[in-house]
């Protein structure tokens, strides 16, 4: 059985922006990079469980809206205090204009 889940349409997310996607009781963040690639991570900051989709995307960084903690959304790496724990990332593909993420 495929784990790929349709999250949204490709055009739903602006370039260099992020969108929240909730599925099966979990929350995710879907990113569109400045060079028009798509990425997905867990939706909540590992520091204090704030929705990252309310944050700011700058190049390959997502900044948490509550305490300005930073992650590389492509790799999930924690990149600045107060975040210390990496973010879980998920594979993403674009199929017929739809954004699909594989939820393991």
């Amino acid at each position: 059985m495929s784990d790929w889940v349709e999250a949204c349409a490709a055009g739903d997310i602006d370039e260099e922006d992020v969108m929240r996607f909730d599925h099966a009781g979990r929350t995710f963040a879907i990113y569109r990079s400045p060079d028009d690639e798509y990425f997905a991570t867990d939706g909540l900051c590992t520091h204090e469980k704030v929705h990252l989709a309310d944050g700011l995307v700058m190049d390959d960084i997502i900044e948490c809206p509550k305490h300005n903690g930073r992650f590389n959304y492509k790799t999930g790496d924690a990149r600045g205090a107060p975040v210390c724990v990496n973010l879980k990332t998920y594979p993403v593909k674009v199929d017929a204009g739809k954004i699909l993420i594989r939820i393991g």
Partner: protein
Amino acid sequence: MTAITSSAASPRDYSLTGRDARLAIENGLAAAEWYHTDIPRKQMKELMQRSDQPAIRDTIIWLAAFVVSAAGGIWFWGSWWCVPFFFVYGTLYGSSTDSRWHECGHGTAFRTQWMNDAVYQLACFMIMRNPVTWRWSHTRHHTDTIIVGRDPEIAVMRPPDLLRAVLNFFGILDAWHAMVDMVRNAAGVISAAEKTFIPEPEQPKAIRVARIWLAIYLATIALALYLHSWLPLMLIGLPRLYGAWHHVMTGLLQHGGLADNVIDHRLNSRTVLMNPISRFIYWNMNYHVEHHMFPMVPYHALPKLHEMIKHDLPAPTPSILAGYREMIPAFLRQLRNEDYFLKRALPPTAKPYREELHNDNPVAAAAE
């Protein structure tokens, strides 16, 4: 503005490991969900956008003012003409660094992170705040703003210690405590309170910084002794005392006299309209409700944010003087009744305070 009293357990226990810390967690006040004014995502993104240009411009002016005032102070050292130069130098050193520490700590002043880090380290040294310890304490301040037992940055506790507040206009107690903390950290000791908000892997960094700073202060004192002159200390260290007045004057207004143990920044924070010089020194932190509600918005965008959401906020306090006219009587009342506080009135266009969010804390009992 309505003056009311609350039914909080008295006396308040501000220890981060004490009774009220436990009660805050039990009552859901710790790491709670706070009220935010609704702003469309597109506008929010515009407000959050980072730019190096405003902060580079301001930092060039700031550093130039340091150089000119220091040069004047040194040149005229020994005559009364040095006083105005050291007044400016001290205010830059002991006050403007409060806002630079703050904004660069949030990482919002500059778009380029190393610029935030560089100004942050410099400002932390001058304001005598360990850059590691205070980064984490400020994180907690934003998570649990003015929650008793959780917020390590409550400037005026209840009942207010007014002598302490007055002494801090000259930096006396703050600098003393900063020095004690620095020596303690330099000796490798992290306090129990610090351990509640500094993650263990970060603690050695706080110790390392304290040791570097201690070496700088010892070198400055040695130079002063060698030269038989106070001048080195007038440039490093003492300005934290004689220049502290402005950051204390503006800092007390941030939350002074307002509610505690609430989860709506409109109730516990104060926006004050100020003159352009104070706003430069303070880097627009006079828009304090706005800053707490949306800490991602850089200082230079706060006036725009204020215009966008003022329909949902209490009317700003019109001046520093007006702020003190409401705050000082509140402090005096709190000497007799520590549950007394000022409740901010909302305009008719605002969403009401969600009293149900405050059912387990003082405001619910106080508001009606």
